């Protein structure tokens, strides 16, 4: 092709390649934004709230399946009457989960925080009703973040699996 009259350097082949690259990039960008809107990159969306329960409703854990590094995240643990023993509910958070979580706040405030070989044991009063516990934390690992919540030492247990984006 001739470029008479145009006072610029042109590289036809390069420009053609650039246009193709641009169009592909638009599609990729649109796909990323669409995936983010659906919730595939954490935050609100389809994986915002997953649930795992132990038998007989003694223990239900609600957790986001996908979350992001250092983003404020909530774990909700609902206990049933079967989890109460001697007016108290003791919950053990497995150490693999606790190691990857920067816990900011536990509501309601536990009576005791105790380090055990299995992980972190929190004891809650269960005077009126079995407690609904909210653990507010920031993920401190990247990638897979599995955990187990156990009632007492060896009561009903719930396993859950989270993924943390970098």
């Amino acid at each position, binding site marked *: *092709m001739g470029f008479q009259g*145009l006072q610029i350097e042109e590289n036809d082949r390069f420009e053609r390649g650039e*246009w193709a690259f641009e169009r592909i990039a638009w599609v990729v960008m649109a796909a990323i*934004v669409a995936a983010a809107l659906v919730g595939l*990159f*954490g*935050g609100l969306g389809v994986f915002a709230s997953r649930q795992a329960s132990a038998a007989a409703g003694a223990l239900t854990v609600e957790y986001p399946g996908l979350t*992001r590094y250092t983003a404020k995240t909530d774990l909700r643990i609902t206990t049933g009457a079967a989890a109460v023993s001697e007016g108290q509910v003791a919950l053990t958070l497995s150490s693999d989960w606790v190691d990857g979580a920067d816990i900011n706040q536990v509501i309601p405030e536990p009576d005791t925080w105790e380090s055990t070989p299995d992980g972190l044991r929190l004891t809650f009063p269960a005077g009126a009703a079995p407690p609904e516990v909210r653990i507010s934390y920031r993920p401190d690992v990247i990638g897979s973040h599995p955990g187990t919540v156990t009632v007492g030492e060896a009561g009903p247990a719930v396993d859950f699996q989270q993924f943390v984006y970098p």
Partner: protein
Amino acid sequence: MESVVRALVVYLFILLLRAGGKRSLSSINTFDLVLLLIISEATQQALLGDDFSLTTAALVVTTSSRWTGSPTTSVSASRPSPGSPTAPRWSWWTTDGF
């Protein structure tokens, strides 16, 4: 999801500033520069929320980046170059160049 929505809202809001008129880089003065810094400081929290993850940063940048073609030679020897994003067949997509 929030990241994309945040970026979109801030983008649309910033777009309103264009109503104040466009300026070329050479006509920018110190006041405009200070204003630019204030705008970026003020919108930072609204864009990122409270997490410091790469994912959030990448999503915010992707959502608010310019989604039109770069300026390229769309006319060569008075004829549109076939395949150019600004050639007539793409003129509904981006109108600069024509």
